[in-house]
């Protein structure tokens, strides 16, 4: 029996079309737009001005807030302006615009391909390096990684969990990274273990990636304390709490974090970024983005510089097919529809999915028949049908009592609802309203 989490979950069609396509380095575009808000938390403060010349890897914005992260220039060239730019939802965000000129790198960045195994930095230096290099969670939540490496006093971590689950359909960026940069990821994991001062690390990979499992298992034999665990294919196994439950059978209580049960979870992509930052002195300036879709001409996994316009990336993948109904940023379960293809690639963008119009539609909404399918698939023991109704009626106190803020927005409820009800849309709204009201109460 393969390990998995016990309650809820769904199994959407996997559609991992790009699993066999190696990572391709995308050429640098002529112009890039670097949004200042690529992490949760307050936007970073730009350190450059119009007309400044920047090099690749140069710090261009500083994360000042508690959950902010630094941003580095992914290209060399001239800052053309500092203004607002529309993100993939069309909303304006502060951003730095750079016109690309040449290919100059900041000194001290090791661009060689050879593996560096010896970890020279101490635990504190590693955490500092992660902060300086602007590393955020690469799975999509973009939570600054250095915070997760700073264990609060009074708490103890005994096992590091590495998320190589990639449970979202279509996405294969972590899968390819594990296959092609396996050793780098394992060194990255060792670095994270050293930073957290733990002896044990577990890598969880879903069983639909047997090549990645066997590859990493072979490599892990030469790394102390790292083990690879195949997991049963079930969505949303890539969620922190579900992965902790699946791998070490510990339940993270409502409103708590994995550290409260002695674990820290990092993404496989983050481990690679940490390796590059610590061993190669290279800040987070590029990432792997899966571009996929059934009618796309050249789907694939592309190593893209941050700030590259989506249109440039889509052009490289063969252009937007005529039958496209929706372009989704992220996976089809949790991703958001893109309304602006001029938006730049950001740190948390793991995939761009083009869904044909014949599949991209909403079901006709009919009344809830109380079948409780949403209740049985909810991995967090919530009652989605109730939370939706409470939000619709504006009963936010009751929604708070029903633990609406526990929802991680995995979308299993909306996926399974036979009445086509927009459960997640309302729960998201209810959750953000409850959090806002609670904040107002604290301020009062």
């Amino acid at each position, binding site marked *: 029996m393969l390990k998995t989490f016990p309650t809820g979950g769904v199994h959407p069609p996997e559609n991992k079309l790009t699993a066999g396509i190696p990572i391709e380095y995308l050429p640098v575009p002529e112009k890039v737009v670097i949004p200042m808000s690529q992490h949760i938390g307050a936007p970073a403060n730009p350190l450059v001005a119009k007309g400044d010349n920047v090099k690749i890897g140069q710090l261009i914005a500083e994360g000042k807030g508690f959950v902010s992260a630094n941003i580095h220039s992914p290209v060399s060239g001239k800052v053309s302006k500092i203004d607002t730019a529309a993100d993939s939802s069309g909303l304006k965000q502060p951003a730095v615009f750079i016109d690309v000129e040449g290919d100059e790198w900041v000194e001290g960045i090791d661009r060689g391909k050879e593996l560096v195994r010896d970890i020279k930095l101490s635990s504190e230096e590693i955490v500092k390096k992660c902060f300086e290099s602007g590393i955020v969670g690469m799975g999509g939540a973009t939570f600054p990684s250095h915070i997760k490496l700073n264990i609060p006093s009074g708490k103890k971590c005994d096992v590091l969990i590495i998320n190589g689950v990639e449970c979202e359909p279509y996405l294969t960026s972590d899968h390819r990274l594990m296959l092609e940069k396996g050793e780098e990821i394992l060194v990255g994991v060792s670095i994270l273990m050293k930073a957290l001062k733990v002896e044990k690390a577990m890598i969880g990979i879903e069983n639909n990636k047997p090549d990645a499992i066997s590859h990493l298992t072979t490599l892990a034999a030469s790394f102390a304390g790292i083990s690879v665990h195949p997991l049963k294919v079930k969505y949303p196994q890539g969620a922190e709490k579900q992965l902790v439950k699946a791998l070490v059978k510990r339940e993270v209580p409502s409103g708590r974090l994995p550290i409260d049960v002695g674990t820290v979870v990092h993404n496989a992509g983050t481990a690679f970024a940490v390796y590059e930052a610590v061993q190669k002195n290279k800040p987070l300036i590029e990432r792997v983005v899966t571009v996929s879709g059934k009618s796309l001409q050249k789907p694939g996994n592309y190593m893209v510089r941050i700030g590259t316009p989506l249109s440039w990336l889509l052009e490289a993948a063969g252009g937007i097919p005529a039958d496209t109904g929706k372009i989704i940023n992220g996976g089809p379960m949790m991703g*958001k529809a893109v*309304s602006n293809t001029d938006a730049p690639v950001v740190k948390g963008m793991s995939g761009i999915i083009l869904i044909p119009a014949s599949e991209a539609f909403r079901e006709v909404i009919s009344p809830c028949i109380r079948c409780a399918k949403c209740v049985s698939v909810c991995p967090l023991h919530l009652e989605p049908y109730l939370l939706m109704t409470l939000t619709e009626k504006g009963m936010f106190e009751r929604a708070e009592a029903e633990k609406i803020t526990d929802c991680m927005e995995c979308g299993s409820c909306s996926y399974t609802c036979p009445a086509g009800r*927009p459960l997640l*849309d309302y729960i998201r709204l209810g959750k953000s309203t409850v959090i806002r009201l609670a904040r107002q109460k604290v301020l009062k």
Partner: protein
Amino acid sequence: MSSTILTTIICLSLLAFLSAVILYFVAQKFKVYEDPRIDEVQALLPAANCGGCGFAGCRNLAEAIVNSDSFEGLNCPVGGAAVMEEIATILERTAPVSDPKVAVLKCKGSPEHRPRTSVYDGAADCRIVNSLYIGETDCSYGCLGYGDCVKACTFDAIHIDALTGLPLISDEKCTSCGACVRACPRNLIELRKKAKKDRKIYVACSNCDKGGPARKACRVACIGCGRCQKVCSFDAISIVNNLAYIDAAKCTFCRKCVGECPTNAIIEINFPPAKPKAKSEAEAVQA
């Protein structure tokens, strides 16, 4: 047989008497005094329980009015001056002076003015659209058209116009309770002072972007050019964040700004259509 019936009657009567005595003393002991005027005031209020006064319902407002010494901060916008007058008579106070107001929509972005750039097919709820993305057009400030204000209105005063896709507010039915103002996630509805013959002049736009992007997103957007501000002789127009605002308290309805606006973002409602007359009026004011 008859003795059984007799015993039953006597027993039940005794029991009833005893209970009555107990209930009488309990009622005396736990008596709660309530000002009878609260009921009277409540009877005068519209019983809509709309929440426009800031209280949960009419009863709460009645209690607050009776228990307070003045009318400060206490007003029923639905009943208006007439109801407050009557309440004042009961309580032997002077009625507060409050201007009747009416809700207006500060957006004119119908499809002909504001082209659609994407299609939304999710839940029909403005709050959800607003939390997800910019909306179906390129204006991040404008009306989304999914009718949260219509759902919020308990007086049937708001309906979505099928032609423009924007809510239409009926002046007769609007009680200025403010439910729509609170419901709109983009803060597009404003309660403005009612004028003679329901006349209105206001900036029907909420776009705070600079002129270029605002105009690109919508042909009738306020571009913050300041021409209306210059032409206004009464200092009624201010421009904050690239957006003009007409102060209803200072506006004299001279209509000069309406003609001056290059994008027609300022609208006039319920004015006679004759243009020459408007000019002479404006000249008269200037003279």
